[in-house]
């Protein structure tokens, strides 16, 4: 290689390294926020129903703070290179989306759709080639949500909230039916989906215990 060519190649490589550093910086910022969020959300297992709205209100602003990261990333990722770099922040985004899903469930007992989740993190349609929320990441977050809800079903009962496991059970069964419709290939998503049945079983056991002792009214299967 002549020296010109060599320099050109080295410049290209240096540029990528610089970009990677910049991205990592942003992701670190986001990780700080998600750790705070997860820390606060851990308290849902010991928070009685009437104190829940206040707890959720305290996390929401932190979650919205993640928008700074997504817009910063959208600004530094070159056109069409979303998939090149996304592995650097997949885990952070999944955690943030998981938090958003959990907050939504605890507020409305409903499912935050992928479009709503993207909006929560301030991800805009026109960034789609640089910063977007892929289905795969959303599904990972959904599975984390189910993992967390199976734990909540147990702890809600401890706190005297006997209705919660039943609501969770219905919600999670719907999700499980949804996941069963997908043709997943043999990857981590598939393995995590396969483990969902243990969460389902755990929730059902709680529902069984609660209904056996007539602590809560179990609605008939529709």
């Amino acid at each position: 290689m002549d020296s010109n060519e060599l320099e050109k190649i080295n410049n290209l490589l240096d540029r990528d390294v610089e970009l990677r550093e910049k991205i990592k910086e942003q992701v670190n910022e986001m990780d700080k926020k998600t750790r705070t969020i997860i820390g606060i959300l851990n308290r849902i297992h010991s928070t009685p129903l009437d104190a829940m709205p206040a707890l959720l209100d305290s996390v929401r602003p932190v979650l919205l703070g993640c928008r700074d990261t997504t817009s910063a990333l959208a600004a530094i990722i070159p056109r069409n290179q979303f998939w090149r770099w996304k592995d650097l922040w997949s885990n952070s985004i999944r955690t943030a989306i998981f938090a958003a899903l959990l907050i939504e469930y605890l507020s409305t007992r409903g499912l935050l759709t992928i479009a709503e989740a993207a909006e929560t993190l301030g991800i805009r349609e026109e960034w789609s080639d640089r910063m977007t929320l892929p289905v795969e990441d959303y599904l990972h977050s959904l599975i984390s949500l189910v993992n967390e809800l199976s734990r909540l079903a147990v702890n809600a009962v401890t706190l005297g909230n006997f209705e919660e496991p039943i609501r969770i059970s219905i919600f999670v069964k719907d999700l499980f039916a949804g996941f069963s419709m997908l043709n997943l290939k043999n990857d981590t998503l598939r393995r995590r989906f396969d483990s969902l049945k243990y969460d389902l079983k755990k929730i059902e056991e709680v529902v069984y215990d609660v209904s056996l002792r007539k602590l809560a009214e179990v609605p008939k299967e529709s």
Partner: protein
Amino acid sequence: MPTTNIVTIFDNFRAEIDDHNDRRERLIKASRDITNLAKKTIFLLHRLVQEADGRELDDLTAGKKASQQAYPKLREIQDLYAKLQPELQGDRFWRYQRQVSPGLQEYIEALSFAHYLEHGSLITFEEVQRTLMDSQGVEVCLRQVCSALYFPLTVSDYLLGLSDLTGELMRFAISGIARRGGRNKASGVCAFVRGCKADFERMTPYIRELSKKQAVTAQSLEKIEDAAYAIVVRSSEYDLSPEMLDDIVANSISSYSDNSPETRQTFGRRRQADHSDDDDD
């Protein structure tokens, strides 16, 4: 009500996931076809150079002729890439880069081998890019290359393809070393490969697989060096004519191919071919 909602949501997910997996499969298949074609091209080049050697053409014309015959094969690959263009448009390229890259590296290996035989030099990044765009693109933007490309060429694929070239050059040098002029050619290749190895060294921290390939390059280089060493040692022991040296060299090569299992087969076959040539003389 919520149940039907979830069904629609997951219906959309299924469509998207299926679409992604199907495209991925198609690209893996295409990449395999391209790898195949590229491998055949490399074998063709080796064969053509050997045949030309038999006819005692000088190195440069022999190399030029061989590469001219290989270019149509390489064009077949270029046509395949042209057809893949829609599958790799926009942000898709980077999504499927891992599926595309093996074939692309093999193609670059074949292309750079043909280029070396023709010009005796390393093909540049831009020259590789120019083979991956439609003919209009080449005329329109000789400087502004990127916009007309079928898909972006990554530095890593370029370098990894070139790194594989050194292995082919080792084969090229050693299989030709017993021919008249083969020793000159081998020392040329030796210097060239040494240069490649030095150039790539600075880039290894940036590209993970490159350091592994550097080790292979080092091995190839050592094989050429050992062959060159054997020749110098033998020729100093005896005061021999170049013709007689050729026989001794052929013998010493056979000992190399015996202790290098990954190349033994190729060399074994070529050695027999060498002997039959000698008989004709």
